[in-house]
């Protein structure tokens, strides 16, 4: 119910929302939780295992109970805490993990069966018969499992990422954070102040005491106003710093649009900020912890501070009559605040016999709450008084305070372990914080407002002093400085179930069972009972579980262990971690210079790494890709074809030692290559395995152009820089990638020269005599356009690669097509390229698969033994040079029209298809229009000695088994006459 006055809500504006099929009204400033409570709704969710009815336990991001499915369709968001959902007009939320309805949940039967469903019961049963697990038991368990649901529709919203830099990152805008920001801001430091709440101020928004003669929330508002006027401070409300990573990098999520019905056009829902900071001040406050007692999980039972926050900040009381159960003085503050706001407090139950009284309510000192009633919402509590008598109280809400846990989560992200502090009966940050981080205020166990303000200011000054930024301590405003008075009390003893982890339904009994069964280490306890593995990650439960275990083992809590936290601080949407890198934008697309032209031709494109390459160019009338590819191959071999080969990596190698350098990079010799000539080169990894192949052309004594495969352009460059800088630092050689600088086309086929002669300027003689196979030159074409010409051939035909500055790539392909019209020049794509290279037996990616040697590839003789090049030595190891080493061979099917599947394994005819009979495998296969037959290449044990033998290519996976003949991999023109023509 809404109180008549007060609260930080805009009563003038009404917002309409729907929950569980019913419509309600709330105000700006409300959360879904506060608005539901204002409308008298206490039941908001169901627990995970027993499907117990639940309401809010907290008023913040540590909420384990009140989880809802927010929005719908591509925006459906399961497991959203009602306590942090900022109310907007038209909000829709549905309950989750309840069927058929929140009030009548069929699986609440589990609650009745709880005596059977104890911690880890599933490890002991469901084992017989074995096949029943997948078929029967697991489906039942899975159907019951999970919390909320997603629709599997693509997320309708976009997400951004960004980077921020600062001197001081302050996490949390409560009293210590605000004071720290004020101090650092006035000193001129670059400051980021981030707070997960939509309203900065932290607990100040939920308290009634004053600071500097004004209401705490008013002081917060004024301070924030001063901060927002400082240009060096970035205030980031609605921003959760979720992780502390190495070297002062913090992950934060800013929820820029979650408070709106939908994000504005073009705007993201959330932003992932990577914050790079010199120093960090954690001012994350503290979280109140519950006390375990029988049936302590009913809707209406919540932490005392949550009850106080609902009354003070949102002017909402969950019930007309409430009670407070506490073991510390802060519970008294709750009682007093509630009374002051006109809420009837039936009793203040304090476990401490010597507790002080609070005027306006009855104090039951030395008493404990031993049970509660109310299936869907609290109706009453039973209190055991100090004198042993019991008393029943009719209340609709109960605030519970077991003390406060400093919110140390981020201090643990680099494996820091907090230490036990008797003074507050809680864990405080110890010495091993993430470097650069300090902690102030309640997060370090300083619970009074004065201590928080003072701590924030002092820690800020210290952090800035570290950075040589002069800062002065401000005059602190007057504020309360109450001492922390607590007598630890963790759970009320009894036979009934008392909840520790609310969401996962872990009770004191479960911890006892874990102890009984030997799961006593903190991590064993957690994993066996699922304590602390709920969506609050133990914020509300770990401490209680640890305390119960300590009691059972007879050790102190400090001896028993500690609770540490891992990232993220609160759960983070997958979408924001991915940012814009989704869908078609998952990775950049690289387009070749002829891309637009190829699009005009109707080319089909294929992803080759990040490149998009034309795969084939269908012509009208062609109904299958094979028709197009066969035509492209025939046309190239019959006349002339053209293919964009820009994607091949190009590395400019210059310097006096360029030749000597390449001589060490390639396993074959390069020092004697003449200027104006190109040589095929094979690079090995240092372990002797083939790394990459390509060509190197010598443009001048001190200048080479190296080409790499498309896939290895980047790794080869990196490898060469390693050799240059680390292995031979005094060689005079300079490297730079020029892959993108040149548009390069392969022009292949018997008419290639004729076509080229129409383009190449007359000053350059490209006749076979003047420009033979493996020649290269810098030339001009089309009346003076600078170009490079290489006479190299992947297709086996008379072929050239012609390169021009990239900006002319589009014009060049059009000019080639124009000039080649008389030869019926045919553009070909990667498929035809692949067919022609298989026909020639050239190795490509499928053969250079990272496990094959020069010997395997039939290039063993290229590996020079006269020099020390990378990989030479280890390529000679025994296991790489055995007699039955794999050799690259050609494979022809007995029936030319039967396909050989790539990936098939080679077996003797009649041999059983088992691994022991495996002789090798097919790497690349295609239909050869040139031979009118399917062909393939592959690796065969001792293959060179098996030419002419008949074997099988067996692919049980695809149901194929093909009789094949072993032939030379050079199917077409084995003598190489065409390419020299």
């Amino acid at each position, binding site marked *: 119910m809404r109180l008549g006055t007060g609260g930080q809500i805009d009563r003038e504006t009404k917002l309409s929302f729907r929950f569980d099929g019913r419509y309600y009204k709330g105000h700006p400033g409300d959360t879904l939780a506060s608005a539901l409570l204002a409308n008298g709704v206490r039941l908001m969710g169901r627990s995970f295992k027993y499907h117990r009815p639940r309401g809010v336990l907290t008023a913040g991001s540590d909420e384990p109970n009140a989880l809802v499915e927010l929005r719908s369709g591509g925006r459906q968001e399961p497991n959203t805490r009602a306590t942090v959902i900022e109310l907007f007009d038209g909000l829709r939320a549905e309950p989750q993990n309840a069927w058929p309805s929140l009030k009548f949940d069929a699986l609440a039967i589990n609650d009745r069966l709880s005596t059977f469903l104890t911690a880890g019961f599933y490890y002991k049963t469901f084992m017989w018969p074995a096949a029943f697990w997948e078929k029967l038991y697991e489906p039942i368990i899975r159907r019951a499992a999970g919390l909320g649901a997603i629709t599997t529709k693509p997320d309708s919203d*976009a997400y*951004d990422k*960004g*980077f*921020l*830099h600062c001197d001081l990152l302050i996490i949390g805008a409560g009293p210590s954070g605000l004071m720290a920001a004020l101090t650092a801001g006035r000193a001129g430091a*670059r400051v980021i102040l981030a707070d997960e709440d939509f309203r900065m101020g932290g607990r100040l928004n939920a308290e009634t005491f004053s600071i500097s003669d004004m209401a705490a929330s008013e002081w917060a508002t004024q301070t924030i106003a001063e901060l927002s006027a400082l240009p060096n401070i970035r205030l980031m409300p609605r921003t959760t710093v979720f992780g502390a990573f190495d070297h002062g990098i913090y992950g934060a999520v800013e929820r820029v649009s979650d408070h709106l019905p939908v994000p504005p056009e*073009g*705007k*993201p829902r959330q932003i992932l900020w990577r914050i*790079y900071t010199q120093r960090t001040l954690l001012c994350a406050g503290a979280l109140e912890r519950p006390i375990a007692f029988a049936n302590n999980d009913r809707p209406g039972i919540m932490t005392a501070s949550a009850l106080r926050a609902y009354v003070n900040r949102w002017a909402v009381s969950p019930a007309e009559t409430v009670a407070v159960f506490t073991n510390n003085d802060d519970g008294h503050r709750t009682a007093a605040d509630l009374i002051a706001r006109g809420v009837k407090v039936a009793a203040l139950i304090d476990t401490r016999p010597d507790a002080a009284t609070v005027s306006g309510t009855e104090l039951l000192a030395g008493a404990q709450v031993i049970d509660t009633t109310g299936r869907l919402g609290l109706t009453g509590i039973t209190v055991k008084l100090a004198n042993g008598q019991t008393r029943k109280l009719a209340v609709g809400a109960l605030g519970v305070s077991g003390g406060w846990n400093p919110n140390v989560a981020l201090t643990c992200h680099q494996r820091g372990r907090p230490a036990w502090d008797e003074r507050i009966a809680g864990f405080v940050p110890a010495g091993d914080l993430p470097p650069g981080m300090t902690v102030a205020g309640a997060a370090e166990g300083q619970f009074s407002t004065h201590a928080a303000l003072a701590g924030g200011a002092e820690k800020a000054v210290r952090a800035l002093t570290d950075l040589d930024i002069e800062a002065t301590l401000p005059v602190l405003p007057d504020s309360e400085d109450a001492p922390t008075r607590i007598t630890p009390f963790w759970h009320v003893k009894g036979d009934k179930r008392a909840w520790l982890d609310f969401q996962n339904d872990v009770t004191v009994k479960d911890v006892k069972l874990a102890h009984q069964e030997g799961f006593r280490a903190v991590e064993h306890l957690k994993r066996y009972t699922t304590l602390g593995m709920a969506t609050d990650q133990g914020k509300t439960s770990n401490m209680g579980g640890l305390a119960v275990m300590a009691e059972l083992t007879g050790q102190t809590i400090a001896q028993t262990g500690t609770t540490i936290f891992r990232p993220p601080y609160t759960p983070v949407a997958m979408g924001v971690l991915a940012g*814009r*890198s989704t869908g078609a*934008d998952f*990775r*950049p*697309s*690289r*387009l*070749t210079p002829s*891309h*637009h032209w190829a699009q005009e031709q109707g080319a089909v494109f294929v992803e080759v790494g*990040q*490149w998009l390459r034309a795969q084939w160019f269908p012509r009208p009338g062609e109904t299958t890709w094979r028709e197009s590819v066969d035509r492209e191959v025939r046309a190239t071999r019959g006349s002339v074809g053209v293919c964009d080969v*820009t994607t091949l990596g190009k590395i*400019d190698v*210059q*310097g*006096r030692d360029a030749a000597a350098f390449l001589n060490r990079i390639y396993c074959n010799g390069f020092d004697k290559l003449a200027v104006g000539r190109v040589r095929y080169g094979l690079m090995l990894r240092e372990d002797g395995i083939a790394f990459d192949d390509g060509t190197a052309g010598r443009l001048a004594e*001190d*200048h080479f152009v190296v080409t790499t495969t498309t896939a290895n352009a980047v790794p080869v460059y990196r490898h060469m820089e390693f050799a240059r800088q680390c292995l031979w630092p*005094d*060689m*005079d*050689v*300079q490297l*730079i*990638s*020029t*892959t*993108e*600088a*040149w*548009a390069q086309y392969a022009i292949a086929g018997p008419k290639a020269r004729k076509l080229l002669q129409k383009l190449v300027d007359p000053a350059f003689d490209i006749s076979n005599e003047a420009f033979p196979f493996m020649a290269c030159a810098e030339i*001009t*074409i*089309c*009346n*003076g*356009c*600078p170009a490079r010409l290489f006479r190299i051939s992947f297709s086996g035909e008379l072929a050239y690669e012609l390169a*021009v*500055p*990239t*900006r*002319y790539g*589009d*014009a*060049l392909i059009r*000019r080639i097509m124009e000039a080649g019209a008389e030869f019926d020049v045919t553009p070909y794509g990667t498929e035809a390229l692949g067919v022609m290279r298989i026909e020639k037996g050239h190795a490509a990616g499928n053969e250079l698969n990272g496990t094959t040697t020069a010997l395997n590839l039939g290039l063993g003789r290229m590996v020079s033994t006269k020099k020390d090049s990378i990989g030479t030595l280890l390529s000679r190891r025994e296991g790489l040079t055995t007699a039955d080493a794999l050799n690259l061979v050609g494979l022809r099917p007995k029936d030319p029209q039967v396909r050989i599947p790539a990936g098939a394994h080679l077996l003797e005819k009649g041999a059983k298809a088992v691994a022991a009979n495996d002789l090798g495998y097919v790497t690349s296969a295609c239909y050869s229009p040139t031979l009118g037959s399917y062909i393939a290449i592959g690796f065969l044990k001792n293959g060179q000695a098996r030419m002419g033998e008949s074997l099988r290519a067996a692919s049980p996976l695809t149901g194929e088994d093909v009789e094949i003949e072993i032939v030379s991999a050079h199917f077409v023109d084995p003598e190489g006459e065409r390419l020299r023509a």
Partner: protein
Amino acid sequence: MHDLVPMTALGASHPRSDTIGPVTITESPDWALASVAARLGQEANCQTALEKGLGVKVPGIAAYVSAETLAAFWIGPHVWMLEASYATRPDLAVQIKSACADTASVTDQTGAWVRFDLTGESLSRVMERLCNLDMGKLQPGHARRTLIEHLSCFVIRHAESITLYGPRSAAQSLHHSLITAAKSVF
């Protein structure tokens, strides 16, 4: 003079320009680029040659300097990128090589990059969504190479604008990222 018609990296005959809020993002194709790497032991001679031959004093680490018709930025130890108007110096690399002779390895980089110029107010707000450079500290006259949406780019800070050089083949992806970021901010 040859008659091949150049195409911009974004695949048009004319450069593209978009204004989003206060920011204008313009493709700038008319720049010639060449990398100059000093030969081992020739570092000083190379710098002298560049100064004498082209009037450009090589920039220090991570710096960008501009002379009358040339500009240069540092891209690695003893390696610089020289930048000039393509219209006036289409053969920039050749000119540099003739100035430097054997003191440097020179490579034409004109075709390797797409250039975008960002002008207007609040450029930092766009940049902070794109790359991890600290724009608060990257003063005019600085040039850094870094990652933008998975792409390796040079970022050059001028007094009133920011120049980005990204891989030419990925021009469309880079442009899309820039436009998206600007629309996201403004």
